[in-house]
């Protein structure tokens, strides 16, 4: 999103009002291993909001209780320079132990879980159940007029399933955000 700045008016400011680097925006998935201490998540999120970076999705949970470690998975978007900056800025947070750009470090698997509530009767209900089967979504709650489906997959798969459910009576959707691991034997 570019501001409408009249040409010539940049000479009235010492700041560089126009971005020098206009490049393709890329989507990257970052895995951040942090000390599981109060305030670490706030510091990570504050970094994104304070410096104007983008968060498309964020998940966090303790992954190593004995080691007091949590894993934060952030999906972000930016030019390559911005992505490098994000990694460097994350890396200097005192409680951040490791930062991995899963999109850059090699193939990775990404999964997201979503719950979708679909209400309806008759043909819509039958069609919803049939499509759920196609998408390998599971029914985790059912009434005579509604289903709650659980679906796991890439964000794109979840999007596609949600799009199909919309005309069939989609009421609510809850998504976990992306969890991701690199493929193969290497860690993080």
């Amino acid at each position, binding site marked *: 999103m570019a501001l409408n700045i009249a040409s010539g008016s940049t*000479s*009235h*400011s010492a*700041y*560089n009002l126009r971005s*020098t680097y206009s490049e393709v925006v890329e989507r990257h998935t970052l895995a951040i291993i942090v000390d599981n201490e109060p305030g670490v998540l706030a510091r990570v999120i504050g970094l994104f909001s*304070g410096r104007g970076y983008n968060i498309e999705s964020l998940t966090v949970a303790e992954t190593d209780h004995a080691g007091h470690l949590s894993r934060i998975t952030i999906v972000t978007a930016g030019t390559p320079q911005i992505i490098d900056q994000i990694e460097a800025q994350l890396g200097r947070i005192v409680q951040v*132990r490791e930062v991995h750009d899963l999109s850059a470090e090699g193939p990775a698997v990404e999964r997201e879980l979503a719950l979708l509530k679909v209400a309806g009767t008759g043909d819509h209900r039958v069609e919803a159940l049939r499509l759920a089967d196609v998408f390998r979504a599971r029914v985790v709650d059912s009434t005579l007029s509604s289903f709650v489906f659980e679906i796991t997959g890439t964000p794109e798969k979840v999007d596609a399933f949600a799009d199909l459910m919309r005309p069939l009576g989609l009421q609510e959707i809850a998504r976990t955000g992306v969890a991701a691991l690199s493929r193969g034997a290497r860690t993080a």
Partner: protein
Amino acid sequence: MDGATQMTREMTGARMVVQALKDQGVDTVFGYPGGAVLPIYDELFQQNDIRHILVRHEQGAVHAAEGYARSTGRVGVALVTSGPGATNAVTGLTDALLDSIPIVVLTGQVPTFMIGSDAFQEADTIGITRPCTKANWLVKETDKLAQTLHEAFHVARSGRPGPVLIDIPKDVQFATGLYTQRADHVSRYQPKRQPDPAMIEAIVDAMETSARPVFYTGGGVINSGPEATRLLRELVAATGFPITSTLMGLGAYPASGPQWLGMLGMHGLYEANMAMHGCDLMLNIGARFDDRITGRLDAFSPGSRKAHIDIDPSSINKVVRVDFPVVADVADALRAILDLWTARGRRLNASGLAAWQQQVAQWRARKCLTYTPSQTTIKPQYALERLEALTRGMDRYICTEVGQHQMWAAQFLGFEDPNRWMTSGGLGTMGYGFPASIGVQLAHPDSLVINVAGEASWLMNMQEMGTAVQYRLPVKQFILNNERLGMVRQWQQLLHGERYSQSWSEALPDFVKLAEAFGAKGILCKDPKDLDDAIMEMLAYDGPVIFDCLVEKHENCFPMIPSGKPHNEMLLGEASTEGAIQAGGAVLV
């Protein structure tokens, strides 16, 4: 006693704070008491190793701690209460963050069981200070207090230095716990220090062939310590490459050195900015390509290859893409460069360098700091020239506030050594200089400490006169009084159609009477003929002085890179500003 009890001792949290400060070698704490830190103040009362300096406002405490830190290279400490005490510290914390100054700020907090209840003098200190600290901690258990204190000092001084804060609830101060000694504290935070040898080799390759090299140094050299300064001077002397510095880095290379170009940037010297623009190899050592340095980015030093040494990986490629990034401590990187370049026979491009030095001499000959002298009014530049002439060679520390006077001080005063120049660079905090000068004077009781100020900045923390007088600190407040917000006025003249919106002061105090009201000495000077005597009177007085120097009210600070212009389009003086003024909606600095 067995080993375990020798290593840890049971004591109250309040005593732990004082004990940890002693363990960390702290001799001075700047602070202001209040309800939530009373137990710590009670402990301070009962000992004599740590001196507490009572400031008059918590912002003053943090700036004083910054001044102490910058002039000593050690960690500065401030102690303030909860709520307003903590919020008043925010400007100082932000200032220290942007200028990478190691300070530890201790704040009191309401008791743990009252946190979140909107208790009296409660603020979410950790939340408020998170973006303006390198790290901060709320300590909820007395057993964890000592190790958190040691970790705080370690984090503040390690890697890229910066401010840290520890929020200590009052019940944690009263409760007892086990004290961990400094020697027993192990930190996981160990930033990378050693440079990549391949990159050092690439830099040496470039140095050997470069025809137009320039060193561009910053505060990182000074933060790295005396060894970095020594190595920098050795490398500059051995190569003969010209060297410029940011505002933050002044003194790392002596102003009297033959390769010195002067400060660069928006109000930097012509020769420095032209060398940056025209160089073929830029060696950035501990600087960060700040927007006041680069000017227009797409026209910044277009023909150069760039090396960047910085201990903070996030500084590299943040605004300017560089060819040779080195994440390392400045001293380690400089040593590696010197060693390799020496081992390879100290080769240089002699013919190229000779031509470059000739070019630099031509730029120097423009004498860009020339101003129109006056017999009747004191020009601010003249005041600083005389101050420099009358104090050169003295054991001298200079602080500044923010604005025109700050830039003139950087241009007209010569800094021969590091840690002698305390100024708010990144944040540009008016009100920084006076409390900073108090911190400097406490660290260097026998030295001459001068705060070069503008009257508007100085008034922002004038309450610290009480501190200066109470502790008999002979700080010299050298106020260039133009009854204006000079830098704002300059921008309004050059860029906003001479509409001087709110940039003058109508009700200034009589500074001489103000000094006397505090029990200090005031000196008024308005005639250039009296200036030398008045400065000598200021220097001779053993106590705090407010020097009210009435200067030309409409003087502009030049050279100046107009906004949005590259380095080679500087304005050198009043005549050259014509045509640079453009009408239209503007975005002020």
